[in-house]
């Protein structure tokens, strides 16, 4: 009934969505556990603590908020990976119209990140 390429594409997309959200949730949960282990009864502002640029050094130092922040970023990246996987799948099916549409959506989302950074 359904052809094989489409079935593979669907399971790849489902896997990205499922594991992307699972992994990011685990990283966020790890950040929260670190908060519990390290923090006094009341801890600093829940506010924004840094940016893309300083995130990785802070994660390596196991800065609690930075680990939570990394999990959040992984969550935000999951849908972008989904666009890429779908685009590749359309390419394998030789459905070039939808390859272009996927590239268009990807361009808007990447454009939003660029807009966000500057």
């Amino acid at each position, binding site marked *: 009934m359904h052809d094989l390429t489409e079935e593979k594409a669907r399971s790849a997309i489902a896997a990205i969505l499922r594991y992307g959200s699972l992994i990011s949730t685990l990283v966020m949960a790890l950040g929260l556990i670190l908060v519990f282990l390290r923090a006094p009864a009341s801890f600093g502002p829940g506010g924004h603590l840094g940016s893309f640029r300083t995130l990785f050094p802070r994660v390596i130092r196991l800065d609690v908020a930075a680990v939570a922040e990394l999990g959040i970023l992984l969550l935000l990246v999951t849908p972008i990976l989904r666009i890429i996987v779908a685009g590749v799948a359309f390419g394998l099916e030789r459905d070039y119209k939808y390859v272009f549409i996927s590239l268009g*959506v990807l361009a808007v989302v990447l454009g939003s990140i660029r807009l966000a950074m500057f």
Partner: protein
Amino acid sequence: MGVELTWLQLCGLVVLGAVAGGVGSLTGIGGGLILTPVLTLLFGVPIHQAIGTSLCCVIATSSGAAASYVEHYLSDIRLGMTLELTTTLGAVTGSLVAARLSREALAMLFAAFLTYAGSTMARRSLQAEAVDPGGVEPYEVKRLPLGLCGSGAAGMLSGMLGVGGGVIKVPLMYLGMGVPFKVATATSNLMIGVTAAASAFIYYARGDVWPLITAPAAVGVYLGAALGARLLRRTPSRWLIVLFSFIMFYFAVIMIWKSFHGGFAR
């Protein structure tokens, strides 16, 4: 700037997320419609930051549910991708507009949307369930330009208010574009992740995604959504939907009242 957090509040955020995620998967009311009002009214999080949190949580709910819809051939991946062209553009615009709005104005808009979404949910739950005859009939997508415009509007609402926008996209696809109800629901869900991501980065870079508020809420949402999906596989009970539409009306009234009485200008 920032809210002092205690351990108790952190746990409270996980519970709040779990309730929002659970109710979302049981009733189809998006988690964003519950999270933002509770974060602003109960936890004292400013509304722009509450919306940033909600946007991230919306991605968490959508990803889990969308995975199984995609596997079961319910989401129309091509249609979803096409409409995402305008939902993402709308979302970017919405997030830029939200940044220019005062807390009061944003709260009023949110309250208006809550009222609309609440009444739609209540009406739909009271109608006879004529939809859902099991399988999916073959269909042809009609009126694509209308779909693209409507999706742009839904994306803008999502980027501005931190909601998924299913309340707009599902009727748009089902009534406007001739897509079966189940497919419309599943496709709308698939689109939410990409749409929210397009504006969430802008909120993040602006400092409107507070990690220690967002992480506990998102973990809760993930757990709640997984639990909700396991608890109830049949159609959601009507009283639950009606109950939550009344809670949404209540939130809307309080948000409007607070906007007029300076409750948001801390």
